[in-house]
């Protein structure tokens, strides 16, 4: 569509002015507080591209309203004449432009001695003071439109904050510099040194070639199942109901789901690169939207190595992880087993993926026929590893130092066959279960696991 005609008349101020130390005791995390008067908040503005991007918000509201009630919107559209349309646009465009401009004008950020401050909002003002030493990770994302315009979005991950604070948009070079500075400051560099220390060196561990990614997606059952559903269900519905709206209402989500599972995943996981750097593992990926994430070492709670049935011949695996307070869940979309295990060893220091797992006793087949063979357990000096699933094998690893509590459960049927399950709860809300163990072994496991997680924590704490 068209872009608002307003151009910001004030260039962003170069560089942050040094701030006097904050007199008040600042909140430990991002705290919403009534900000000081606009004049007293020095700092930088975002990139002048921002208002153009933000101006889409009123349009999005209109489109959302139209999508909410399609038939009503159609009736309204039929009544519209050319002059009314023009008049509407004449109101809409300046309104959008004004909104975009104002929201840009009133957003400022500054890096002080101890904090990153972001102030946003025209009517409802929000000032976030983020303590630099609490910053866990800074992600740079570049959506397609932003890539064309040469800008980037900065997302700041803080312990305990439910949602990430965003700085969108910054110039690409500025975003990179700010990210390096924030991470250097979070790592404890002095303010002056942090500006010059630059980005921490990284060396590449793995890169997924486009061919293997395409092949891996083609060999995933879910991709084909969703495609099949999208192709079979709508004709069937048409045959049954002959109602166009019902068919469309079902077909569109199905097609969308199929697209997201195949092409969408390919586009999102394209050129997946994992590299090692002092502040954690860096992940870069995306064909259209480039995303740059950091997985901080030591905050990974569990790691899962997933092995779908059709990948097994090729020896490929997928690695997923759970990080406390983060939504990142995929570490490696597809890689040969040996390479994936090397990456796992980087993300969980000192951990080797156990190769041999012990099966449950044979009588477990009475409780869970056939599928009992998929269960397995291995406990090493550093991790508790349990596998389940027969066709799609999932091996979950929890370092002993991350165990929050250990539970043993035994139902009546399991009791009859002298079996029990041991659950290990980790911090990211994930529970790893070693199912169908011999009852005596499970009781011993419970005791030993409590002991191991205690000593594991001690060791992790002292080192």
């Amino acid at each position, binding site marked *: 569509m068209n872009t608002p005609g307003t151009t910001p008349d004030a260039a962003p101020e170069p560089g942050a002015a040094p701030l006097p130390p904050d007199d008040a005791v600042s909140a430990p995390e991002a705290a919403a507080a009534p900000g000081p008067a606009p004049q007293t908040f020095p700092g930088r503005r975002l990139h002048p591209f921002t208002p153009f991007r933000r101006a889409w918000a009123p349009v999005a509201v209109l489109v959302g309203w139209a999508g909410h009630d399609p038939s009503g919107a159609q009736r309204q559209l039929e009544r519209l004449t050319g002059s009314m349309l023009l008049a509407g646009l004449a109101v809409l465009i300046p309104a959008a432009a004004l909104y975009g401009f104002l929201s840009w004008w009133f957003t400022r950020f500054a890096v002080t001695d101890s904090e990153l401050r972001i102030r946003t909002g025209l009517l409802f003002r929000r000032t976030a003071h983020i303590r630099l030493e609490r910053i866990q990770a800074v992600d740079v994302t570049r959506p397609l439109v932003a890539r064309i315009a040469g800008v980037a979005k900065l997302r700041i991950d803080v312990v305990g904050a439910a949602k990430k604070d965003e700085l969108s948009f910054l110039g690409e070079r500025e975003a990179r510099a700010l990210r390096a500075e924030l991470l250097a400051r979070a790592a404890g560099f002095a303010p002056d040194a942090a500006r010059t220390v630059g980005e921490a060196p990284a060396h590449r561990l793995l890169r997924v070639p486009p061919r293997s990614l395409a092949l891996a997606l083609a060999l995933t059952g879910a991709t084909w199942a969703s495609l099949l559903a999208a192709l079979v269900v709508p004709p069937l519905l048409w045959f049954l109901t002959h109602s166009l709206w019902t068919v469309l209402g079902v077909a569109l989500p199905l097609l969308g789901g199929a697209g997201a599972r195949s092409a969408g995943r390919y586009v999102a996981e394209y050129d997946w690169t994992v590299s090692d750097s002092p502040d954690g593992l860096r992940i870069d990926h995306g064909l259209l939207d480039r995303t740059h994430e950091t997985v901080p070492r030591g905050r990974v709670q569990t790691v899962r190595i997933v092995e779908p049935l059709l990948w097994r011949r090729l020896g490929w695996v997928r690695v997923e992880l759970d990080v406390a307070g983060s939504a990142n869940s995929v570490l490696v979309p597809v890689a040969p087993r040996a390479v994936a295990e090397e990456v796992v060893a980087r993300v969980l220091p000192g951990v080797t993926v156990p190769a041999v797992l012990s099966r449950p006793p044979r009588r477990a087949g009475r409780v869970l026929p056939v599928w009992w063979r998929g269960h397995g357990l291995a406990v090493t000096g550093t991790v508790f590893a349990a596998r389940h699933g027969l066709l799609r094998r999932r091996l979950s690893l929890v370092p002993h130092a991350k165990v929050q*509590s*250990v*539970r*043993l*459960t035994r139902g009546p049927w399991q009791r009859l066959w002298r079996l029990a399950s041991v659950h290990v709860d980790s911090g990211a*809300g994930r529970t790893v279960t070693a199912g169908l163990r011999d009852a005596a072994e499970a009781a011993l496991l419970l005791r030993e696991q409590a*002991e191991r997680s205690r000593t594991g*924590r001690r060791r992790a704490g002292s080192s």
Partner: protein
Amino acid sequence: METGRAGGAGTDGTQGDGGTHDGDDGTQGDGGGTCTGAEPVWRALPPGLLRMRRLLLALWTVLLALLAGVLPGLFAGPAWAASALLPCALGGWAWWLLGRNWRSWRYAERADDLLISRGVLWHEETVVPYGRMQLVEVTSGPVQRRFGLAGIQLHTAAAATDAAIPGLVPEEAERLRDRLTELGEARSAGL
């Protein structure tokens, strides 16, 4: 049936630092982690909890039996009043189950972790290391208070941790809370 558990005075255990009761209780000696091989000292729940649950059960049983007996007796003939026997039988069965369940509950404080064991048919045993406790909560509803009981609930960073003791004598609950908080601070390990 347990209506008295919800609500009540939630006490934020992280503030309690006083009340060092180290003397009489059967703690397993603080001499480090060498005592884990020994069998822990188990404690049972107070009989007041069983009494409270059975009283509530009896109340509900009588109510249901009256309903099941009087209504059919009035509308369908006096013979139908015998249907009151069904709630009575169920109540009797639940009476026995409550006793069994109450006997199965026990907990033990070890040098470095708290053990909670419960359930007969569906047995569950939980181990929570002191260093992992984020919050210790003591709750007591109106019915619980009437019977001189208080429940204690432990929270860790994992949502799946369901370490709770439904009824304790308030002094014991407070002692446990203070001790757990104290040990949790000493052995704190965070995430």
